[in-house]
């Protein structure tokens, strides 16, 4: 008897909950929120469409393809669009981006991951509260200021130490770029290390490991998805960074293995040349092609970061 009553009551309650009263204010707010997200997505799609539409003649128009086709991009090393014989070789420019980013990662990964391990595992609370805001300040420095500092001060400093042939080079730009990446990797790695369950650290210490063994072999391994995601996001940020490389790298479109030679990166090429290019010319289309490539590359990098985090998180969840 009581069971029947509870079923009836349940049905009544279900009826009351499912009937929504139409409130004008709620309706309006819902639609406004929907519109704001809609416009955000629309904006991204439109930027996408615009960039690809301007880059499309590289693949479709026959006159543009005579000067600058996908095959021609990789068949010559020289990037010389302004000349009697224009050549659009992308190899030197892509390798330039690669060189600067590698130098930047080489400096920023040890520093930021080390700092993250220090502040989450070893630092006393007062020191942690001091270090974290300062790294955040580093993140707030505008890149043009960093580029200016690299151009005026760091370039001479490294020139005096290494006596390179070229004062503005990939090494200079890479070190300046690492200042931009360090806060990115640091914040994410530090969050990842903080979210390692305390029981794991205590278990490791209880089994006889000392503090740095616990930090490097237990905490770091568990936090590895987060640390890797931070590194990958830093990589994406470094590839797109324009102002620093424009000022500090010397912008010489040469292909060389020496990191003390000037380089031209993809982002600096667009920044330097798009202001003066003839609209609608092959050069214009090629610059948009470079922009589209950067866009796609950053898209892949960010998707990769999400994939890495997701997969390793599931793996760790399965193990633990």
């Amino acid at each position, binding site marked *: 008897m009581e069971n029947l009553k509870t079923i009836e009551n349940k049905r009544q309650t279900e009826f009351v909950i499912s009937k929504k009263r139409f409130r004008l204010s709620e309706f309006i707010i819902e639609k406004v929120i929907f519109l704001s997200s809609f416009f955000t997505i629309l904006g991204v799609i439109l930027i996408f469409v615009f960039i690809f539409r301007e880059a499309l003649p590289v693949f479709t128009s026959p006159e543009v393809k005579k000067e600058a086709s996908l095959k021609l991009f990789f068949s010559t090393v020289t990037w*010389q669009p302004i000349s009697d014989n224009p050549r659009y070789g992308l190899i030197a420019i892509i390798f330039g981006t690669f060189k600067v980013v590698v130098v930047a990662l080489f400096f920023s990964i040890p520093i930021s991951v080390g700092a993250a391990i220090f502040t989450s595992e070893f630092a006393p609370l007062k020191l942690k509260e001091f270090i974290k805001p300062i790294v955040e300040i580093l993140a707030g420095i505008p890149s043009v200021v960093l580029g200016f500092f690299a151009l005026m001060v760091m370039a001479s400093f490294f020139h005096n130490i290494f006596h390179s042939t070229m004062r503005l080079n990939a090494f200079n730009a890479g070190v300046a770029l690492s200042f931009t990446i360090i806060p990115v990797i640091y914040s994410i790695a530090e969050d990842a290390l903080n979210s390692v369950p305390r029981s794991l650290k205590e278990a490791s210490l209880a089994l006889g490991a000392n503090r740095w063994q616990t930090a490097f072999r237990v905490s770091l391994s568990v936090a590895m998805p987060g640390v890797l995601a931070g590194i990958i996001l830093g990589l994406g940020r470094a590839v797109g960074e324009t102002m620093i490389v424009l000022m500090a790298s010397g912008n010489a479109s040469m292909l060389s293995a020496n990191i003390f030679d000037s380089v031209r990166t993809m982002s600096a090429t667009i920044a330097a040349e798009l202001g003066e290019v003839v609209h609608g010319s092959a050069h214009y289309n090629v610059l948009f092609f470079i922009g589209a490539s950067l866009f796609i590359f950053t898209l892949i990098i960010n998707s990769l970061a999400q994939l890495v985090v997701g997969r390793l998180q599931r793996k760790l969840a399965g193990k633990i």
Partner: protein
Amino acid sequence: MGADFAPQTQTLPGTGAIVNAVSKDKYGIGYGGAAYAKGVKYCKVKKDAQTSGYEPTLENVKNGKYPISRYLYWYLRNKPTGEIKKLVDFILSDQGQQIVTKVGYFPVK
């Protein structure tokens, strides 16, 4: 003349940056707007291997002997009228051209 730049040529954002880079590099050489040339030396420039080199002085630029000089152009939609005409007339007047010389560039007239 007419050949391409070498791949090792550095492009810097602005003549000020070039002057700064050349002044800090013992073997540096560059070119840019004449008004920014403080703290660096002028070079003699030859048109080709046969002619002699000329420095960027006022006469050399005016009679065309200095090979790497160019005009600075103003683009207007129509023939200048009203306020625009006053501005253009001022620039081309003696007073305006004197300002050009004072800053470090070379006058048109």
